[in-house]
């Protein structure tokens, strides 16, 4: 048993504590980097929102806030199952750990599924930026709005949610690896570092969505 734990210790560290602290700090630094990565997009969004307030308001009403709200709920649940997974890992409960990880993956997949539905809908309505972009005449609240500025909104919408979805896909991939590792009994009360830092990542991706949802879907609804 103790041999197994020793194998989890990489040669450059003195003990598991040091390894745990280093990995956790590494993930935090990585997340700071991620904040600035998304920060560029948030900056672009805020600038153009200030520049074209009406167009952005009108454009944001073309999004389906019910689907957005559903996805927000889904992600919050997935954060909960992720937190429970970390806890199971700390308690050394292998079965529960595998189950919670699978639930997290499932919720992430639901989120992406809803996103696909939304994207498909935008595609059908010619709201994807590019040569085929067009605003349909039957939207009365779009009268008098410059379609280019609406397109700009959708450029940002796709860049931001697309980047977020990409992070979800990566996250699901990593979770799948964790499931295999957990299944093989690689974690224990003493060694659960990977679960813990993947948990940090997952919560971060959720938090980004918590900002994206009101910014893109809600901000101009009364």
């Amino acid at each position: 048993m103790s041999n197994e734990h020793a194998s989890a210790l990489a040669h450059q560290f003195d003990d598991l504590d040091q390894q745990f602290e280093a990995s956790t700090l590494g993930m935090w630094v990585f997340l700071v980097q991620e904040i600035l990565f998304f920060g560029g997009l948030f900056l672009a969004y805020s600038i153009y929102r200030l520049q074209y307030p009406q167009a952005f308001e009108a454009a944001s009403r073309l999004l389906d806030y019910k689907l957005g709200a559903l996805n927000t709920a889904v992600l919050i649940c997935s954060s909960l199952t992720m937190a429970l997974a970390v806890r199971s890992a700390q308690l050394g409960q292998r079965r529960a750990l595998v189950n919670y990880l699978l639930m997290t993956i499932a919720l992430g997949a639901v989120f992406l599924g809803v996103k696909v539905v939304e994207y498909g809908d935008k595609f059908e309505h010619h709201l994807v930026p590019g040569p085929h972009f067009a605003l349909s005449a039957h939207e009365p609240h779009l009268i008098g709005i410059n379609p280019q500025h609406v397109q700009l909104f959708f450029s940002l919408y796709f860049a931001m949610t697309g980047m977020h979805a990409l992070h979800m896909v990566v996250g699901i991939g990593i979770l799948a690896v964790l499931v295999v590792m957990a299944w093989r009994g690689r974690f224990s009360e003493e060694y659960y570092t990977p679960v813990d830092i993947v948990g940090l990542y997952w919560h971060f991706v959720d938090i980004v969505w918590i900002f994206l949802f009101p910014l893109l879907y809600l901000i101009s609804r009364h």
Partner: protein
Amino acid sequence: METNVVGVDQSSSGEPSAPPRVHYLNAAYGIGSWLLTKDHKRIALLYLLSVTFFFFIGGFFAVLIRLELITPPGDLMQSETYNKMFTMHGVLMIFFFLIPAIPAVLGNFLVPMMIGARDLAFPRINLLSWYIYSIGGLLGMGAVIFGGVDTGWTFYTPYSSTYSNSNVILAALGAFVAGFSSILTGLNFIVTIHKMRAPGLTWSRLPLFIWAHYATSIIQILGTPVVAIAIVLVALERLFHIGIFDPKLGGDPLLFQHLFWFYSHPAVYIMILPAMGVINELITCFSRKRIFGYHFIAGSSIAIAVLGFLVWGHHMFTSGQSIYGGFVFSVLSMLVAIPSAIKVFNWTATFYKGSISYQAPMLYAFGFIGLFTIGGLTGLFLATTAIDVHLHDTYFVVAHFHYIMVGGTIMGYLGGLHYWWPKMTGKIYPEGWARFAALVIFVGFNLTFLPQFILGYLGMPRRYHYYPEEFQVLNVMSSAGASILGVGYLIPMVYFVWSLRYGKASAQNPWGAHGLEWETSSPPPTENFEKQPIVTHEPYDYTPKPEEVAVV
């Protein structure tokens, strides 16, 4: 205490029958043992090879540029081709040489050694970042092979996103990918410096080289992702005609410039701070004196890192930002001069009553101080809005940033490479040749770039392949200097390679220097230290020579 300055390892010749010592270089053989290594020292050498490769390719483009500019008419190449030349020169030199050079080669090798660790915190990520860097380099090279990019290394929109050819995507992707390698290196350094210091190595005992790399890593973590997202947006704009920067679609090209320079001004400190870190080590060692103002030097590294993020707008004085913005950025830019000057003053104070020896690494340190000072002072001209309107996009700017980046960063890099070469390879290079090369580089450098200050002041714009005849004399001087400089860069390459085979074996500590990296054999064992070092002293604990003590 060890006194011979260029020490030769006597112990190895003493026991002829002893089996050869196992160190990191001969611990494993075969190409696989290098391409899959997780040893930070081997990864440093991988970087050394690739960084050198890109340096000489980038230098090749520089030669073409200077050749074209010998005569006033554009007779060697079309403007189209010329634009591609200076773009590739800039892209390769900045993203694939200057930014990675010192952190990825010297930093990778020395950060764990200097803090008494067995390796970086994440060796696998370290190897990964070399692969990422190489892939980025290949993408950049691909852009050249498929016909070249003509946007300049700054990729300004809407030219890059709408009008230029689509090789822009490849080149920008190369820079983007290389950026991730830089982020991962920074992350690895931060965690390693925080969590893996040897017992007794408190923050105020850290070598200044480590402080410099710590500050650099902060910039890499905070700046690189911002330019990364800007580059992604340019690529998306090209591919899908989304309009974030395109004014025709409601976007704003100024936003690109803000995002770009928010990284790219701090990036000049990614290049120069590690060089300053090297210079600290050289100066105290070859002055045999404790460095003057340790805490100020360490603090000024952090101050530069922080202030560096507040000055990006000085690249946009003439882009149409508001005059208030211009004023604020002008004042903030001047503030950066303060921590930089603190360092220069502290180095000078360290010389005072030091017993200075003029070994090759020290010559590079002197070169660094001179060239960096000229580059920094001319930066003040450019930071003054009114003067910048005259000098903007002239050869004055070209001279300014070459003094800083080429004069500063490369001098620091070469100085460090010479200083730690015996540690890295276990071999001694020929000292005479090394001093000679340092001299050639210094002369060639000034002959190349001093005339460019005058050219710019007289009004010769940058990025043109022809010019009025009255500028020819200065341009010929500059081209002549460039060829001297080129030879100067080739000489070290020749004798470094020569020394691998024919150089004498180096002692553990050939310079009699202080620092944990000198407390293990040269070249070090894979685990760096035979047993965990424990630190009980301040850094740079150089005691003056006995006769000097007697004088006091």
